[in-house]
């Protein structure tokens, strides 16, 4: 069974640019979560999508947005990039959309560097 996949693996952008990160969940999983992990810091919750709907959102500005497609894959968009957006962006999926009750399976992440 394939795990969670993310693309691209690495990205370099400049301040003010926009970026789109992509995630494909494990087959059969309906929920996708996005996290930001800045260097040396923990996992900061960004967004949770289930069955195409946004279920919850972390404490991030509106320039962080996303969506989930009918095949349950997801995109994370970040507009007007700032230097502090440099981080590892992790996507995770879970089976049934039960949120904190479910195991989350993480992808390898996309490492974003903003110059």
């Amino acid at each position, binding site marked *: 069974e394939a795990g969670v996949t993310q693309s691209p693996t690495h990205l370099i952008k400049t301040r003010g640019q926009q970026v789109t990160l992509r995630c494909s969940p494990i087959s059969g999983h309906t929920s996708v979560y996005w996290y930001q992990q800045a260097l040396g810091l923990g996992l900061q*919750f960004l967004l949770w999508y289930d069955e195409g709907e946004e279920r919850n959102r972390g404490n991030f500005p509106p320039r962080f947005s996303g969506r989930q497609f009918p095949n349950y894959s997801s995109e994370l968009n970040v507009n007007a990039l700032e230097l502090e957006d440099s981080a590892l962006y992790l996507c995770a999926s879970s089976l049934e959309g039960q949120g*904190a*009750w479910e195991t989350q399976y993480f992808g390898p992440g996309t490492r974003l560097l903003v110059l």
Partner: protein
Amino acid sequence: GQQVMQIPQYQHVQEGEDFTTYCNSSTTLSNIQWYKQRPGGHPVFLIQLVKSGEVKKQKRLTFQFGEAKKNSSLHITATQTTDVGTYFCAGPESGAGSYQLTFGKGTKLSVIP
């Protein structure tokens, strides 16, 4: 919102020594999960605890959930270099009527051979 606080932030041990990380919450948790992230890797699920006072073991790892369901611990007996990584606890946090996992800041374990 509710937070899970994790201590210590860093721990350096000699190979063969024991290691413990603690997770505390100001509110009662319905469940708690533990994850491990190897250097350069992504978090990997270790275990979920649900019941008050629950203790679960995985080889040299022992996980406990407090009686009041407000704290948890992970203990590793006789650490090995393969135990190196950051250990995160995660508990539910409410928002918009849904509960998502909130991760502690993690304990980074270094094992000196």
